[in-house]
């Protein structure tokens, strides 16, 4: 069996230090990638509930504009005025929902958790390249979280200019109360967040390049690792641009510069600022903002690739095409940003260029979708909760991605820009799809993360409620957008001509669906926290998977493997290989051990096994400092 080879190496007691760490070093300021991953995950889950709750509050306003919200006064205090949600606070909720979900949940919670957890375990490394920088990365994120969270409680309210915080609105405290202290805190928090992301990203890249175990060539890497690798590159190249955008904004706000400000008359006075460009900020912001979409989506796609292959009991279809399309998406992600800006007054010629580039990115995305579907074809599918969420992700990715073809067309974008059509589009393709990737990852790697198993039936219930719910929330939003409803509107009274009335029932429906979907997440929360403490002990390899993390001890020890790190001889997708008596062959099983299922070219690989073994000393010396 698969685990037999593993136990052979287990008995060596390597001279790895096993001194017990104190509580603080073990659970708080830990340098162990597994602990840091758990810290990211739990922070992300807590943030997700706050972000979701904010959306429920503003959905109440949109779905039930006449509702008496006095009962929310104990929570929201002065933001409820005469039973109504305060208009500025509505915008603050929209802004914070976006910021929290995009950065704190889907960037930190998804990529922070799974890059940290899976990179060392799946490539066969004892830890990240720098455990200390990794620890700093989490604590910078924690500090950013504290600052962002504290901004919810200040008197003038948190930042309220939309998650894109376009100046001059965000630069001038006199434009709205949220642009005062709330925006200062937002910018400080984001600056720390970016620092955290950069430290994380550098670590991921270094670890993947340098610390792969013997035999783990790039073409034997699981697609998860490829996805995390590309994600880290995207983040490393684009987050600094957001940092510079934020710094220039801080200068404009506090030191009287005019990077983004020009010819402004506000609050009864003309400001002295001349020569700045508000559009410059948008270019800088979206130079991160668009790659950010893929920063949250690529890890989810990587996780899905792994889970779909494992649970279809089939190799992923088109392994190299998957890598190629991710590489294509990574490169193209940097040169499509201005499709967010077709109607900002940017030169129309640029609009043409960016329309062309944007629609090209649909091609690698389509390839990925087709490859997933083909992987399912003639599989032997086991519907674990993780598998359900992965299939859900593919459906959401397709449904949301397709409307991108319309929005990427600048002529059509004129009418649809900043309407609910856009909201529906990105919530499906990036919000919900990435969230499903996060959930799939949690259900799949929970046994590895905590050494326990989650309740599967609760997982099924959670999936079906969430899947149906997400479609009920975001599918009808397309219609509202097509009817010309702009986003970030507190109420639709000013549209006139009975248009608001025509969609009262649909807005109500969306709100009800959103509330139910949000409540359904409690099933997950209970299951998650209960299972951490009271779950059944996990088996060694619960999903019969081929990748290296399932060869490591269930308890998750410091250094990951007690003895030598296993060597890797084959790619990670040898599922249902013809001739083999088991339906999966782990990566650490040499070809010489499976003569019955080897292809001719794989028999030739047997000659290289000695060479791979010979690398052990070099690998060990890398860890003995």
């Amino acid at each position, binding site marked *: 069996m698969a685990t037999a080879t593993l136990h052979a190496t287990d008995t060596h007691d390597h001279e790895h230090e096993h001194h017990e760490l104190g509580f603080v070093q073990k659970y708080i300021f830990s340098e162990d990638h597994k602990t840091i991953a758990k810290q990211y995950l739990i922070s992300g889950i807590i943030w997700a509930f706050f972000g979701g709750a904010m959306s429920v509050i503003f959905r109440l306003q949109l779905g039930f504009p006449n509702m008496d919200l006095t009962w929310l006064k104990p929570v929201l205090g002065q933001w409820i005025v005469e039973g109504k949600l305060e208009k500025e606070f509505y915008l603050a909720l929209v802004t914070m929902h976006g910021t929290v979900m995009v950065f704190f949940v889907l960037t930190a919670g998804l990529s922070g958790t799974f890059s940290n957890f899976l990179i060392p375990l799946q490539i066969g490394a004892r830890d990240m390249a720098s455990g200390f920088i990794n620890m700093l990365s989490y604590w910078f994120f924690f500090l950013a979280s504290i600052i962002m969270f504290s901004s919810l409680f200040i008197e003038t309210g948190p930042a309220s200019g939309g998650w894109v915080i376009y100046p001059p609105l965000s630069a001038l405290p006199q434009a709205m109360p949220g642009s005062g202290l709330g925006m200062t805190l937002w910018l400080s928090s984001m600056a720390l967040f970016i620092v955290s992301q950069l430290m994380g990203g550098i670590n991921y890249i270094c670890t993947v390049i340098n610390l792969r175990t013997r035999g783990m060539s790039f073409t034997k890497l699981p697609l998860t690792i490829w996805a995390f690798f590309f994600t880290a590159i995207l983040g490393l190249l684009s987050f600094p641009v957001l940092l510079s955008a934020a710094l220039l904004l801080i200068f404009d706000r506090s030191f009287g510069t005019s990077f983004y400000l*020009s010819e402004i008359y506000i609050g009864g006075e003309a400001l002295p600022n001349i020569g700045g460009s508000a559009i410059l900020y948008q270019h800088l912001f979206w130079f991160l903002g668009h790659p950010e979409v893929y920063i949250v989506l690529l890890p989810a796609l990587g996780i899905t690739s792994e889970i779909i292959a494992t649970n279809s009991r*089939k190799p992923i279809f088109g392994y190299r095409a998957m890598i190629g399309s991710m590489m294509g998406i990574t490169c193209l992600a940097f040169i499509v940003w201005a499709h967010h800006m077709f109607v900002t007054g940017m030169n129309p010629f640029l609009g043409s260029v960016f329309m062309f580039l944007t*629609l090209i990115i649909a091609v690698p995305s389509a390839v990925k979708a087709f490859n997933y579907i083909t992987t399912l074809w003639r599989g032997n599918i086991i519907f674990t909760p993780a598998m359900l969420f992965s*299939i859900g992700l593919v459906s959401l990715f397709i449904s949301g991605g397709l409307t991108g*073809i*319309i929005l990427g067309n600048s002529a059509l974008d004129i009418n649809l820009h900043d309407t609910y059509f856009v909201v529906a589009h990105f919530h499906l393709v990036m919000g919900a799809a990435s969230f499903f990737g996060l959930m799939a990852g949690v259900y799949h790697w929970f046994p590895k993360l905590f050494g326990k198993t989650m309740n599967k039936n609760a997982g099924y219930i959670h999936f079906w409620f969430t899947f149906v719910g997400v479609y009920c929330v975001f*599918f009808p939003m397309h219609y509202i957008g097509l009817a010309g409803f702009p986003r970030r509107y507190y109420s639709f009274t000013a549209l006139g001509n009975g248009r608001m009335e025509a969609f009262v029932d649909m807005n109500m429906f969306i709100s009800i669906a959103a509330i139910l979907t949000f409540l359904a997440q409690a099933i997950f929360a209970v299951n998650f926290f209960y299972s951490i403490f009271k779950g059944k002990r996990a088996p060694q390899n619960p999903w019969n998977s081929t990748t290296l993390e399932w060869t490591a001890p269930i308890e998750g020890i410091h250094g990951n493997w007690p003895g030598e790190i296993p060597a890797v001889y084959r790619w990670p997708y040898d599922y249902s290989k013809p001739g083999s008596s088991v339906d999966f062959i782990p990566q650490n099983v040499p070809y010489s051990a499976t003569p019955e299922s080897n292809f001719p070219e794989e028999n030739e690989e047997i000659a290289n096994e000695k060479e791979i073994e010979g690398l052990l000393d070099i690998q060990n010396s890398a860890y003995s400092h």
Partner: protein
Amino acid sequence: MTYLIGLLSVVFLVLAIMIVSKSMSLSKGIQGTEQDQDTPLDGANNANAIGMIVFLVLGSIGAAWSFLYSRPDLLPVAASEHGLKTDQMFWVSMGVITFAFFVTNALLFIFSFIYRHKKGYIATFYPVNHKLELIWTVIPAIVMAVLVFTGWRTWRDITSQAPDNAVVIEVTGHQFGWYVRYSGNDDNKLGNNNYKLIDATNSVGIDFTDEKSFDDFTANEMHLPKGVPVLLKIKAQDVLHSVYLPYQRVKMDAVPGMPTKFWFVPNKTTDEMRYITGNPDFNYKLNCTEICGSGHFGMAITVFVDEPEDYATWCKQQKPFLTQNPDFLAKVPEKLKGKAQKYIEAPAATPDSTQASGATPAAATSLR
């Protein structure tokens, strides 16, 4: 219709509960007997597989029904020439993606159902097929190329230079409203303005050292002539705003310090739209679509599209800003005072005599 929507949600709920209870009872029955220590399989596998098909069927019905239900309110009647083109292109693109939407989702859920785990079945080891990869790289690429090309042509036409005979109107966004300034009845040219000249009366900062501004007039509502190119010169005073004429399919940001523009040809008058929509109170609106503060959602003015003759009449009824605020004569430089003087209504003189001395009304010349 609320009932139907309620019904739909109930159906989904019942469905979810059904699957759940079935999966629970199945897993209870099977635990310990058939469950193999080595596979993560449980009794809910078939129920989840059936769930995929049920979701596909109910989801497709829901998608189709909700579309037909809201169809009358989607893309309200286009009231500009380019709007007709983009609407048509929208529906073509929509057709393409709807096809792809149903085909790919159907394959996804049907494959999930058909290839659910069966005891003794072995999945096909099928890691790669270059021909297939090539096919589904090339086909989307071709479809995209066609869409890009048609989109690009339309975009190029929409964003081209405005025709010379276009009626020029300036619209300025501020927290929270729109100022509209017309180029006047004499020269069809907007005078300069400067944000430093803004005060309580001169809300768009008209610069009276420029003689072109003498005949400019402002309004609280927007009037547009039908069938004539209209060039909107868009400005913002404080923060970003965005001009949105939903029926004319016009949208362009208003940026402080950077004037933007959009030209289009309105092709349905307000009266025609009242007839088409069957709503005697119908009015076009100019809304804001860029978040600008607490009043963002209410930042709208009424827009009237008139027959060209009615538009010309309306324009003639408007009095230049200078006429309404003669104090601003003091800001006019000495050498231009003479020219400005004719816009000042002397208390004794009849307004008509000054008007008659003016040139041919610009609006009329632009209607050739």
